[in-house]
């Protein structure tokens, strides 16, 4: 079932990303994108996230924030152990306070510098990235894949998930019907 949850989340991310790309089309004084298309995709994303929440608890923060929290904890632990190992009497209150507080700042500096470098590289690659040909068709395919996976894996949750996927498909139909011709 956890495979289904990650498929649902990645489909939801695709829908959310498509909404943001469409919103970009309405900036710079250009006409706003069709509200039904935006609403349809937003509801599809919501239904997919809700379906995923029937399988696993949704993470409280975004993936990037969770990953950076883990990295910061790792760097902080290493820094703390290294400093407490190196100083002669680590049990002195100001040493402990300084080490634990200071390692937090060191972890922030290290992790965010690494992310800044990574982001810079990613931003450079973005200029050469191609656009998705048809995100609605892609979403439909992904939902169909989840439905296929759901069939042999039937338990109490599959009915609820199936209902949400049906609603998502209905809203995809509405979105498709309102999409401007390309």
């Amino acid at each position, binding site marked *: 079932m956890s495979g289904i949850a990650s498929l649902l989340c990645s489909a939801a991310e695709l829908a959310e990303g498509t909404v943001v790309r469409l919103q*970009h089309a309405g900036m710079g004084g250009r006409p*706003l994108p069709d*509200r*039904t298309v935006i609403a349809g995709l937003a509801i599809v994303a919501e239904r997919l996230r809700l379906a995923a929440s029937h399988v696993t608890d949704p993470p409280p923060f975004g993936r990037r924030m969770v990953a950076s929290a883990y990295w910061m904890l790792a760097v902080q632990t290493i820094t703390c152990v290294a400093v407490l190992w190196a100083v002669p009497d680590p*049990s002195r209150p100001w040493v*402990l306070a300084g080490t634990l*507080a200071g390692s937090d700042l060191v972890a922030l500096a290290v992790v965010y510098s690494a992310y800044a470098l990574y982001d810079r590289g990613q*931003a450079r690659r973005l*200029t050469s*990235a191609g656009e998705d040909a048809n995100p609605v068709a892609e979403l439909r395919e992904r939902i169909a894949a989840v439905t296929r996976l759901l069939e042999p894996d039937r338990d109490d949750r599959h009915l609820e998930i199936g209902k949400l996927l049906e609603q998502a498909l209905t809203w995809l139909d509405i979105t498709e019907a309102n999409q401007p011709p390309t």
Partner: protein
Amino acid sequence: MTNRHVYESIARHRQIVQLAVQRFAALTAGGDDDNARAADVRERLDMCDDALVRAAGGVPTWLRTLIGALSVGSVVWLVASGTHLIGLQPGWVITAAVAAAMAMGWPWYLAITALPRRLGRRRTRPFASMEIQAPDGIDPAVEIRGVLQVLRGTIARTLDRYLAEHRQGRIARSAAGFEWLAGREPILFWLCRADGHACVAIEAVDIWDSRRDLR
């Protein structure tokens, strides 16, 4: 565009949402309209307002970490001093101090999840009441849809102005770049969410209105 200007714009967006909320409340007051579809419209408008609040509720990571480090430092110092005074072995002093630092995790998590909304509300407090008079004879449901469409236009303008002076605004010239940046910038992320909720709210008003005609 400084953050203060962004918050002022968001305060205006929130006023537009409140206007839609008021108009819808007036439209459904006293009738048999308190059904699931009317509740859906209200919920969508609330979600739109919440997204706007969160757009204005950002706390810079460095500030959050600095406050966290100072809090951890103070608590650890107090615990280490206390355990030192009662004469615990150095190993236990360190254990108690680290345990105190770890115990702060949950209250800290609660504080950083509650802070953006609180801060966002404070930053986007309405500064003047908005009086928009609809032309005579216009259907209130059409008026609400119009108000929300105005909201979408103003959000798009805020995004434009914000990106024009953003240090990475150049990246957002392409749709892929804009999506990438919106995943990293809370203001962009939540303004886009607010626009999405406004669209869903318009659809919800449409659905509610079509059922009203059937009754």
